[in-house]
């Protein structure tokens, strides 16, 4: 579904008009393209105390970024990276203003502001208050940024590997992630041999892969080098074949809600693969009704497909032989699971349930040879499903985020792809929102 308004507002006349009458001016987002540099221009690196940390400078330089540590005053910045890990008292927070205020005026379209901090850990009230304050800074700043620029916060535990996360949040892969904070833990996060094919040699399975977000996820995983198995209902087989033959994947007709689905999945993996490295629980359905009008079948089918299937398949994989070491599981949640949505008590139950699932299962997956499980919560994404919404409702919904536009399936897919990579091993039991800082659900 084309966003006509976004196209119009990015013409010369449209831009002038929108500016004059105060209409939203969404930008065409910078999205990842294989071989393109990490950032479209130089990145300014600083810290809360003033001196740029050398390790971070080395990391950025290693990623091919034109890294600078002083603001010459006339440079247009593609990225601003602030190391705020030293923050331990409220008066230090002024350092954030000192570092950001000047260069922010020269932030390029689709620029990146990335703040690195320590998570509040409950040991000292002043320290925790100061650390939490950074969350407010980043969320507010994300709402101030214009022209497709984003601001995000990485909460870094002791011993966490930064490289993969910093690259992801600076790159076009995080185009539609805005105003978010994500915790990086100390789990093993080996960098890939080839950053352009981070999933080379891995076997991945995507459920609900015949269309929309599932098909986009499959495409990104295949692009990143994975051998991808596409699962969907037998009835979706025709569309599934087209996706598989476009990206070079294999198809598996599987109803994830069927009683024997976990067993069939394990049997298939044993026969056709050397084990599973990446599992994406994407299959989902909606049966929207106000709770007072909802039939038992509408309730049960949504629960069965969106939540119960994930629980059962995870249990089977953890109890079986087919899940490999340092495996990655990503479950599709939704902003509905965080904020709720009228007419979606059943759907909201499953999408919130998925968040509970990943938080609770994280430890169990760590125990499975440092595997991880995370959730991605998409906001308003342009798909066949949203294309069926009434035009006015859709147009309003598209603008209700800091980026003033709907995301694309590929935006969700890039987040899933990153969480599926070895380098994201520090992220576990987390929920990553891909919503353009949607105004709904904090």
């Amino acid at each position, binding site marked *: 579904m084309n966003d006509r308004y976004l196209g119009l507002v990015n013409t010369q006349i449209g831009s002038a008009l929108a500016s004059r009458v105060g209409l939203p001016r969404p930008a065409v987002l910078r999205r990842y393209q294989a071989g393109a540099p990490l950032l479209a221009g130089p990145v300014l690196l600083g810290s809360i105390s003033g001196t740029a940390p050398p390790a971070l400078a080395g990391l950025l330089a290693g990623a091919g970024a034109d890294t600078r540590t002083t603001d010459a005053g006339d440079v247009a910045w593609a990225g601003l990276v602030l190391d705020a890990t030293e923050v331990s008292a409220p008066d230090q927070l002024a350092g954030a203003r000192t570092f950001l205020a000047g260069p922010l005026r020269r932030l390029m379209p689709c620029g990146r502001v990335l703040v690195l901090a320590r998570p509040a850990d409950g040991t000292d009230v002043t320290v925790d208050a100061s650390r939490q304050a950074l969350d407010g800074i980043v969320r507010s700043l994300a709402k101030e940024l214009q022209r497709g620029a984003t601001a995000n916060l990485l909460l870094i535990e002791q011993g966490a590997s930064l490289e993969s996360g910093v690259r992801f949040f600076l790159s076009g892969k995080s185009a539609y992630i805005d105003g978010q904070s994500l915790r990086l833990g100390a789990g093993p996060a080996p960098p890939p041999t080839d950053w352009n094919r981070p999933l080379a040699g891995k076997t991945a399975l995507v459920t609900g892969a015949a269309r929309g977000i599932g098909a986009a996820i499959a495409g990104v995983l295949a692009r990143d080098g994975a*051998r991808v198995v596409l699962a969907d209902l*037998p*009835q*979706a*087989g*025709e569309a*599934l*074949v087209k996706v*598989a*033959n476009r990206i*070079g*994947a*294999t*198809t*598996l*007709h*599987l*109803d994830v809600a*069927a009683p*024997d689905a976990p067993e*069939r999945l394990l049997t298939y993996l044993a*026969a*056709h*693969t*050397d084990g599973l490295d990446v599992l994406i629980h994407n299959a989902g359905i909606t049966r929207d009704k106000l709770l007072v009008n909802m039939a038992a079948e509408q309730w049960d089918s949504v629960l069965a497909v969106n939540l119960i299937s994930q629980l059962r398949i995870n249990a089977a994989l953890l109890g079986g032989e087919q899940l490999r070491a340092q495996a990655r599981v990503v479950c599709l949640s939704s902003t509905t699971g965080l904020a709720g949505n009228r007419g979606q008590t059943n759907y909201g139950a499953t999408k919130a349930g998925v968040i509970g699932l990943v938080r609770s299962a994280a430890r169990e997956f760590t125990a499975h040879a440092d595997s991880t499980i995370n959730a991605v919560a998409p906001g308003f994404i342009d798909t066949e499903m949203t294309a069926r919404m009434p035009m006015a409702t859709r147009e309003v919904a598209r603008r209700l985020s800091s980026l003033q536009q709907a995301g694309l399936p590929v935006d969700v897919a890039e987040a899933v792809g990153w969480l599926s990579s070895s380098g994201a091993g520090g992220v576990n039991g987390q929920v990553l929102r891909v919503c353009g800082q949607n105004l709904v659900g904090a």
Partner: protein
Amino acid sequence: MSVRRAAVIGGNRIPFARSNGPYARASNQDMLTATIDGLVARFGLQDERLGEVVVGAVLKHSRDFNLTREAVLGSKLSPDTPAYDVQQACGTGLETVIVVANKIALGQLESGVAGGVDTTSDAPIAIHEDLRAVLLEARRATSIGGRLKALSGVRPRQLVPAVPSNSEPRTGMSMGEHQAVTTLEWGISRAAQDELAVASHHNLAAAYERGFFDDLVTPFLGLTRDQNLRPDSSLDKLAELTTVFGRGESATMTAGNSTPLSDGAATVLLASDEWAAEHRLPVLAHVVDAETSAVDYVHGDRKADGLLMAPVYALPRLLARNKLSLGDFDCYEIHEAFASTVLATLAAWADGAFCRQHLGLTGALGSIERTKLNVNGSSLAAGHPFAATGGRIVAGLAKQLCQNGGGRGLISICAAGGQGVAAILEA
């Protein structure tokens, strides 16, 4: 030179549609290309160069002289994959499996696809034979005068097109009429035929319900299951139908216990065990042996040489060569051209006098346990796009044998022209 057994890796078919149904506007090439693409997707064969693709169609347009190769070029297989067409009426599909399996057995191929496709909707309508003669004569003329003279032979009646029918050129009788004779000669009752038809529908429906076809069928043009399938078929419902073949009181064959005209395509992936292992693809079963046969249905005995009785003769030869008896199989797939075809075939094998006189045996070939017959349904329920039936049966039987944890399966398919094709699979 050593000989090895070809492995059946799996198959893909599209749901079979009734004539002029959902596939009315799909050509053989459309259906075949989609079916090959589904096979490619299932087994991850994108851009793979396979040894050969061998497929056939019974009803074929003259422009489709290279049907299979054209379908390969339109598919996601490597364009470096050679392909050719084979045609043996309803035996086509199984014959292509035999051809590919034999080449693999001899080491000439490591991998190949066999199959068949047919449409009775998008049928090749030809011009009247007399008009064709006139037009060819005009083409041969060297002068304008000669051409005009030739064209003056055009008559209005010649403008009626020639529509293909399933009647036998040498007898002018349709296949159903031929089978009606056989049915009568062997005394096959209406009730027995209807019973077999109901079993076919119930078995096919049950197979769909338990997901048996999940890795054998890919939907096409919105059709997700065989259109002809009637899960609620019953003896009472079938008993209401009027007879369509045979005459008077003795007629027993109805639309319910005969296969409908259908559209569809089926493919089977065959390979050497080595190729399968290299591609991390499990083997379902192996092709053991095959035998073809034919009867003189034009001049022969009304009872012994019926048009669709040829498989009766193939089997004893096949069994003898493999030192097997009729009871040595776990599954029997006897193509249900008509319910009475299957029943007449079984009756012949169980008839001691017939087997002594016509098959050169010392007694009856034997009988089979009916619970092992067409366990996942057959053509009466699924439909029968002529050339596609062999591929449907081979892939399904191979999967069933594999699911059983091993065993031996027998396939018997009758074909127009008084022909029969039989094969043995083993898992």
